[in-house]
């Protein structure tokens, strides 16, 4: 009855090229998606898993076309529903490595419900959120992550709704792995994606991604030399939260549950830890930039909780061990009687 992966990948040597499909990539020239595609194709060979054990699932949007370009199993589904489709895949075949590729409109607007419920269930899927703060495929409307006042095709007078904060949302939804990286930093992205690939349970990564056509430069302050040094804080397990150019290094410390941004070396600097089970610290961290601080890149949280598919699988397995599978006995359960005329 079980569906087994057909090979175990032992001794497997694959390269980035092995993960490239024969389909022409159709993103706009210069799109940040290319860098993410390359980043993913670069780390997958390191995992030692055969190609057929990877499934990439997309919803709708530019990012969601990603599965077409991977020489793995791929399913381009419907708008917002990729986490739900991926859930069905993972429950049915838990041994697969299942990746959801989504954008800010797909994941946070039409698919917001599926995103939060996938995370709270801790289903073992990897969710890459390409956040460019704009709708690309529908040609330039504001998205749930667009800043207030964004002038777009549908908001010529500036958008008036407040943006959602993806990392805070993930904390609220009890996600067990939460990280942020950026399309322009291949090295950092590779580190994060490797950690994502190994996490059991839901792994959520916000990737700051540039839409060259409709929102070019939206992340410049976090990607451009001369700006990113002051605005980005790299999270490192067990290290103090520090950031800023060499000449003006600062650290973050907590005071009265709020972050303070003080000179490096000041007493009480907060040391980063990714094991914040309870969530207050990681939530604070997710809001640093709203408090006038830098934007953290790296792993916010990485904790272990049993994954949904494992718990469900256990229930089914123990029921199968104890219950038998006699359909005739099932039909005859409860009150029966023998009828004789």
């Amino acid at each position, binding site marked *: 009855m079980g569906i087994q992966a057909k090979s175990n990948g032992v001794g497997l040597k694959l390269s980035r090229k092995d993960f490239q499909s024969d389909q022409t990539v159709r993103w706009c020239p210069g799109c940040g998606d290319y860098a993410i595609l390359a980043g993913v194709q670069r780390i997958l060979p390191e995992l030692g898993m055969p190609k057929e054990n990877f499934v990439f699932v997309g919803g709708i949007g530019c990012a969601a076309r990603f599965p077409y370009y991977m020489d793995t199993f791929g399913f381009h589904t419907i708008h917002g529903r990729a986490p*739900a*489709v991926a859930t069905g895949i993972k429950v049915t075949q838990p041994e697969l490595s299942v990746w959801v590729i989504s954008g800010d409109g797909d994941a946070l607007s039409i698919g917001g419900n599926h995103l939060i419920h996938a995370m709270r269930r801790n289903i073992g899927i990897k969710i890459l959120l390409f956040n460019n703060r704009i709708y690309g495929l529908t040609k330039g409307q504001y998205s749930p992550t667009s800043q207030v006042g964004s002038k777009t095709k549908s908001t010529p007078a500036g958008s008036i709704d407040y943006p959602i904060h993806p990392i805070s949302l993930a904390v609220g939804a009890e996600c067990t792995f939460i990280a942020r990286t950026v399309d322009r930093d291949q090295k950092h992205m590779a580190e994060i994606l490797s950690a994502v690939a190994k996490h059991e349970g839901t792994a959520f990564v916000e990737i700051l991604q540039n839409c060259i056509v409709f929102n070019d430069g939206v992340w410049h302050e976090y990607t451009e030399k001369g700006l990113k040094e002051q605005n980005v804080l790299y999270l490192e397990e067990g290290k103090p939260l520090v950031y800023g150019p060499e000449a003006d290094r600062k650290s973050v410390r907590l005071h009265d549950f709020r972050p303070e941004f003080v000179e490096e070396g000041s007493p009480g600097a907060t040391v980063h830890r990714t094991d914040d089970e309870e969530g207050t610290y990681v939530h604070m961290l997710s809001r640093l930039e709203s408090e006038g601080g830098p934007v953290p890149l790296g792993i916010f949280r990485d904790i272990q909780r049993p994954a949904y598919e494992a718990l469900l699988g256990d229930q089914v397995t123990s029921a199968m061990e104890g219950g038998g599978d006699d359909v005739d006995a099932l039909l005859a359960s409860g009150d029966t009687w023998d009828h004789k005329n």
Partner: protein
Amino acid sequence: MSDQSEGSGGNGRPQKKELVEVEAVAIRFAGDSGDGMQLTGDRFSNASAIAGNDLRTFPDFPAEIRAPVGTLAGVSAFQINFSSDDIHTPGDALDVLVAMNPAAMKANIEDLKRGGTLIANTDNFTKKNFQKAEIESNPLEDEELRNKYNVIEVNITGLTRNALSDLKLKSNLADRCKNFFALGLAFWMYSRPMEQTKDWIKEKFGSRSEIVEANTRALESGYYFGENAEIMVNQYRVNEATYPEGKYRNISGNVAVAYGFIAAAKKLGLKLFWGAYPITPASDVLHELSKHKNFGVYTFQAEDEIAASSATLGAAYAGALGVTCSSGPGIALKSEAVGLAVMTELPMVILNVQRAGPSTGLPTKTEQADLLMAMYGRNSESPIPIVAAKTPSDCYFAAIEASRIAVKYMTPVMLLSDGYLANGSEPWLLPSYCDLPEMTVKHHDDPKNFVPYGRDPETLARPWAIPGTTGLQHRIGGIEKQDGTGNVSYDPANHEHMVITRAEKVARIANDIPPAEILGEKSGKVLVVGWGGTFGAIAAAVEALQARGASVSHVHLTHLNPFPKNFKEVLESFEKVIVPELNLGQLIKIIRSEFVIDVVGYNKVQGKPFKVSEIITKIEELL
């Protein structure tokens, strides 16, 4: 059993009671939502089944869990028709109505036959309750009522309290046993044994010995009240019915459909993935399946209907037998995922336990008005096969048939049930698992010349190539496919070819389903065409007319898309065709557009099943 039983009246005087044989009885228990009427009805059905009667049940309850006590909105009822002869329906009119309060009486009295018996719990016939039921004075004092019906007044609440007085239960707890008193009284009236119900009480309330004792005692008190009280004159006996010998159980449609999918998954050697979101009247299927994980059943209560269908499609893509289940409003939300299943040609079953709509409609009432949604309720050209169950037990076979078609033709299949089938029950001669038709399915595993949209020349099905299979990596999705390679294609000619191919694939299923079976003469004056849960009422009506020599036959469709191949020929073999439906004429629209044959509709949309008499009258107009 003797024809007469000696009893001693409540006042100590001995009294002779008649034991009258009757052929069939329809009884309805009606009370407040919290009065336990569903449970009472269920136990009475079981006792009647064990006594060897043929029976049909019809639970009828409000959408509100506990509407204000004593109001019309809160009335909950359960009807059982039991007989020594073959029956098909829960009965048109009642022989007995048990009314636990004035609202229950008011809401149901019109269905009581003239001369029928009304048993009223007088303790609840109070001024306050008349107001709640919007009645001006005590209806039991109405001369007209007493002339029309055999009114039996019983102070059920008080008698129950008396019987339990030494148990020192809180009064609200004691009062909750009054349904067992009513059940005991009904058991006496129809000479039903109490033993199975006593055992059932023990099992159900096992650890709470005082509740076991209280309910058992209330049951016995009701029974002995019948035996002893002067007002209870006749005791009745409904003899065993003659029907095929063998092992039986009572089965409701929702349980049968759950069992059907379990059997189908086992036959196919697949995991069963069940994606659902709670909704009346479909939730019980999820409840039932979640108890049977030992069959490799994976139940997933999703965050919404959309996720339920999307996860089901994901499971199907990964190789499981995927089923998503809901009722009308939930099915509407699933349309997009079903469209994706059409495009990606993946097998899944969508179970729609229909209810009265539109929108929230009447959630606990039955209707069959989702046929056109099943046929056409998706964007663009997205045909899917449709299977409809016709009786509660037929839900078992319909589930198996829907699964067979889904995996053989790599297509989503809509399975239609309805509230009446879902909650109604009937005795079921247990079928043997071995006797089910063999069904096999193979996940594709040969990388040689593999193309995702390569097709079986006969069925046009594409291979089911699941993730994890070496060498079969491929990409599918909602964008139009190039036939064969499955690659994204915007080519106009290919799109038209694919639209036609998907339609042709569904149409070819007609080669693989049984012909429409005519119940009665193969040609004649009137053909009654039905589908779904109206089978019982139509069959009973047609059989009654046939017995009188009328030229009328019956065809009941279980496959609604495609139709059986002989359907047109069958329609043309009769002078007139009538289609009774619990909608405003949906099958008629399809028949007319498909065959350009005019047919007559008989339509009812009251949230209630057809009465046999209604259909007889309508057919007689055509004869």
